[in-house]
């Protein structure tokens, strides 16, 4: 009899996120994240991003944007709450199941995270190799995406000999080359000039029309306004605004 209540609790949980989500790419249920005791980077965040949806994530510095993206691709585990990504319980995945999920997600890291010992081409090809794609096909794909980003003449350089904006574009190329189901881009245009920003945001927007769920964390209200997509605003770890898309692409 004493075991009763906890049993019920045990049963209740799965139900809470069992249904729905067929068309959702990412679902967060009451997610909190605390790195250091007493301080929350995210607090009770519940969000759902559909397949093929394009979402901006905004908010002041330290609001929790990067933390939210890290939770989605299982680089961190939530302190509380549930996260379902592409139908899988992301934080519960073991070391063997995490890589396959990550391969379906392209990430543009805020600090790029390029391998300094590999050339631009190799860095981009990494996302394909990891999947086990044959080498021959890779070269063509890598060249194509580098060309789209205006980097084809830099493909044999090493990241440390690139300008900041060039490095950022390599990071974007690596995230896009694999045609991921979800694209997470953390401040992807912070080092790019306005013209390039528009070009690259257009490229990213295109992928969403091809079915990729795109989540872009940014401070640049210029592009947020330009694309008029759904915009989630975080402040102090909480969702303070979730404005739906308001109109067609410009």
């Amino acid at each position, binding site marked *: 009899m004493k075991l009763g209540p906890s049993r019920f609790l045990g049963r209740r949980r799965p139900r809470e996120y069992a249904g729905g989500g067929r068309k959702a790419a990412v679902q967060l249920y009451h997610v909190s994240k605390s790195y250091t005791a007493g301080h929350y980077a995210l607090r009770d965040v519940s969000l759902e991003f559909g397949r093929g949806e394009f979402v901006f994530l905004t908010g002041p510095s330290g609001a929790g944007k990067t933390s939210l993206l890290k939770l989605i691709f299982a680089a961190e585990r939530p302190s509380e709450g549930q996260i379902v990504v592409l139908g899988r319980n992301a934080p519960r995945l*073991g*070391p*063997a199941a995490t*890589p396959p999920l990550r391969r379906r997600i392209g*990430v543009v890291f805020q600090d790029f995270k390029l*391998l300094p010992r590999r050339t631009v081409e190799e860095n981009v090809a*990494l*996302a394909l190799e*990891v999947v*086990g794609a044959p080498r021959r096909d890779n070269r063509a794909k890598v060249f194509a995406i580098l060309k789209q980003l205006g980097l084809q003449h830099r493909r044999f350089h090493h990241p440390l000999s690139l300008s900041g904006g060039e490095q950022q574009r390599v990071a974007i190329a690596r995230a896009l080359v694999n045609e991921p189901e979800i694209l997470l881009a953390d401040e992807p245009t912070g080092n790019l000039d306005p013209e390039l920003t528009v070009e690259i945001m257009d490229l990213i927007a295109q992928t969403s029309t091809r079915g990729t769920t795109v989540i872009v964390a940014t401070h640049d209200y210029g592009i947020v306004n330009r694309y008029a997509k759904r915009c989630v605003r975080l402040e102090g770890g909480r969702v303070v605004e979730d404005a739906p898309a308001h109109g067609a692409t410009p």
Partner: protein
Amino acid sequence: MSRAAAQLASFLRAALRGITASPLTSGIAIATIGVTLVLLGAFALLVANMERMLDDVGDALHVTAFLEEGLAPEAQRELASKAATVEGVASVRIVSKDEALARFRGGVGRGAALLEGLSENPLPASLEIGLADGYRSASGLARVSGSLDGLPGISDLTSGQDWVEGYLRAIALVRGIGWGLAVILALATLLIVANTIRLAVLSRRDELEILALVGASRAYVGTPFLLEGLIQGAAGGVLALLLLYAVFRLVLPGFEFGLELVLGGVAPRFFTASEAALLLAAGSGLGLFGAAAALASESRP
């Protein structure tokens, strides 16, 4: 199958790139492994050659059974063949009274010429009894002596046993110290090589992290690193073998005379092919182990 081969080739390429991308770190690691294996190998050679010398000394070990005065040569021969059947006896040789005197003279030097004036040879005939392999120890010696003691015609057995016992113990100790040191050295090698590889790998932990974030499986991340450790270890092993062989061929012959004295006429030998392979395997294994340890201490989901 061809896909697996392609995969392996790409892993190998990644491993070689890892080695060539930081030539200083790799060079240091390989040099350290090489030097450590040289130490281990040199010591193993020393102990192996010493073992052979000790075997030779063991061959020279024997029990002397003094025979009763006046035993006829025929009876001596009969006694000798009887002694040969005793357990632990490998060989029996008869030393006649004359031979004993000749030996004695040789031992005391020219001064022994004074013995010439003697009317009678005071030394007894004896049997020189060689010991079988398992009996070249103090206890074996005592067992063989005990069995021989009862035979009729034998007046006495060498009471030099105390000395022999001490001698055998000393040899056992030398052998023990030799192997003990070799084991310690092997453990030290293990630690040093494994740690060197670990340090070399640790300096690239950010690379491991990035690969994991991009969705690389553990095998994809780990295999090139393990291969890298293996290759570095093997390279260190090759380096060690070359160095040891160079010393063996170029330096040792200069000491030939001295070596003969120490090794007692046993020609020094180098590693056999399988022993050399073992050294290589040890290097590679250690490299692999070090890389695996480094990987384990870094791995996250």
